[in-house]
């Protein structure tokens, strides 16, 4: 907070906005795709796989959220988020036989 006062430039504000977007939306989609994949991989009954996956979802979301604010480089955040979401999606599609 102490730095926020003397450096409230437009650039700073934009970088904060970008980080929040990455954390909230990036985190959400990363979690959504990863729990979808997780439910496919779990060797339990369908109901159980769904339940285990949703129970783990918030934990994943939080980790991503915190990580986004822990990593220094903005570009790295966005690039790794987008590529991992894409990867998760493709893997899910592959397992389901869509590709």
């Amino acid at each position, binding site marked *: *907070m102490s*730095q*926020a006062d003397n450096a409230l430039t437009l650039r*700073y504000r934009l*970088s*904060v906005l970008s*980080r929040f977007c990455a954390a909230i939306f990036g985190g959400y989609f990363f*979690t*959504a*795709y990863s*729990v*979808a*994949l*997780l*439910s*496919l991989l779990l060797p*339990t*009954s*369908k*109901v*159980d*796989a*769904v*339940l*285990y*996956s*949703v*129970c783990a*979802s*918030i*934990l994943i*979301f*939080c980790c991503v*959220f*915190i990580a986004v*604010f*822990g990593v*220094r480089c*903005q570009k790295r955040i966005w690039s790794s988020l987008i590529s991992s979401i894409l990867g998760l999606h493709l893997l*899910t599609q592959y397992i*389901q036989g869509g590709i």
Partner: protein
Amino acid sequence: MKESFFRSMTWLHTWVGLLLCWLLFLIFFAGTISFFRHEISLWNQPAVHNIEHNKQQQHSLIESGLEYLNTAAPEANRWWIGLPSSRQPELQVSHRHSQEEGKRDKWLDERLDPNTLLPIEGLVETKGGNFFYRLHFDLHYMDRKLARWLVCFASLFMLIALISGIVIHKRIFKDLFQFRPQKGVRAWLDAHNLSSVLALPFHLMITYTGLITLIFMLFPNPAETLYGDGLKGFRADFYPERQRIEASGKKLNEPAFETAFAHFYRNWPEQKIKRVIVDHPSNTAVNIKIYGDNGTLIRDEYPYWQYSGTTGELLQTARLDPSNAEMLYGGMIAVHSGRIAHPGLRWLYFICGIAGCIMIASGCIMWAKRIRERLKPTQTASFGLKLVETLNIATIMGLPLATSGFFYANRLLPSEMVARADKEVLVFFVVWLATALFTSLFRDKRAWQWLAYGNAAVWLLLPVCNALTTGSNLITYIQEGNWILASFDLAFIATALMFYMQAKKLAEKATANKNVSNKRTQVTAEQRA
């Protein structure tokens, strides 16, 4: 952006915490009160107060309930029998009726004295504890879906604030024992740390499991991946009892209740029953659904038996032997709702909930105070700071005041009033709005002090109001051993005392501040205690 992980977490904690803290306070406040949801429903319904504890066997209660519904509502499309419990003394018999096309079915609720089996006279229309329960996640005056997304979003922020709070906290054990009153912002910091750290496992648990209660709205993806028809298919698998049963159009006179219940009692003689539902009682599509009571088991959904009403044979059961995943998911929801708790544990839940409210409130206050302290005497407060201060007082002092308004409205509104239940809720929001308007005019310490005195007065008078309107009071409750109602009066008085102490403290500080500084009079007058 920030030099180290530690600094960025401090920053994250401050801003994530501030952004949604008032909504979070509302959620925590309503949730904490909801732990006593059934007790509040009981308090709000004086006609039920003097009902004696149920002495009937459950099978005779169910039989009487079915007989009652058969005479009162043979044409209903669903019957519902809720058996009395230690928290709800009455026997609930409700029936649902089809409306013309496009309209939702209409429920009619009736309550019987379990011992005499006569309808309870003098019931008033009230939402009771359900108001706070709904407020906790549906908010009010807004679309349900939107409200739930907002609540989820706020809860996620809460979880982030908690985790980043732990990260920035280097001296977590030292702070457990540290409280430095009379030291301005330091005292608030200690209050914030104390209420957070002491009840930290509770805060983490309640926030995480709270998100789990709405998880299928947040992340329907696993169900959509595994089931062709998505959530619908998953629900059909997981909640067989929630599947809609269509009426057949053929009439049936005598459903096979006896055969069905005889089979149930023979095979599960020890099972306590929570409720019985009969779908289409006068139709050949009749189904008898029996829900078992979980007692204090850490489970959310009830074990379930479904019988055909035409033949009386067992059609299906659910959750008699839940899998590990069901135990995990159900267990999380069960520890969140606290339905499993006996009275002692329920009070612990309540106290931890209050600690959560204090954690959020002290966080908001500290934020505003820090900015205030950094202002130079010549500077005026920014709009943002004024807004934070107004919202702080309006939420922290306004919500308790509004809650007392809800209780007063329950006792004082005429019982024959049209849409009475909604009027009670209206009083709650009008009082809250009035407090908010008042605080936007007086943002300083005086507002805190006056509202603290106001709260103390209304909460202290509440037992008096109760005594005058119901004819019973704290002493008669204790004599009769009615501890639930006695606890209400005691809790009201305790709340009043707390607010009185707060007001006293604020008054002392105001005089002390006046004596100390003459130069900075203007600034200190604007500062809040």
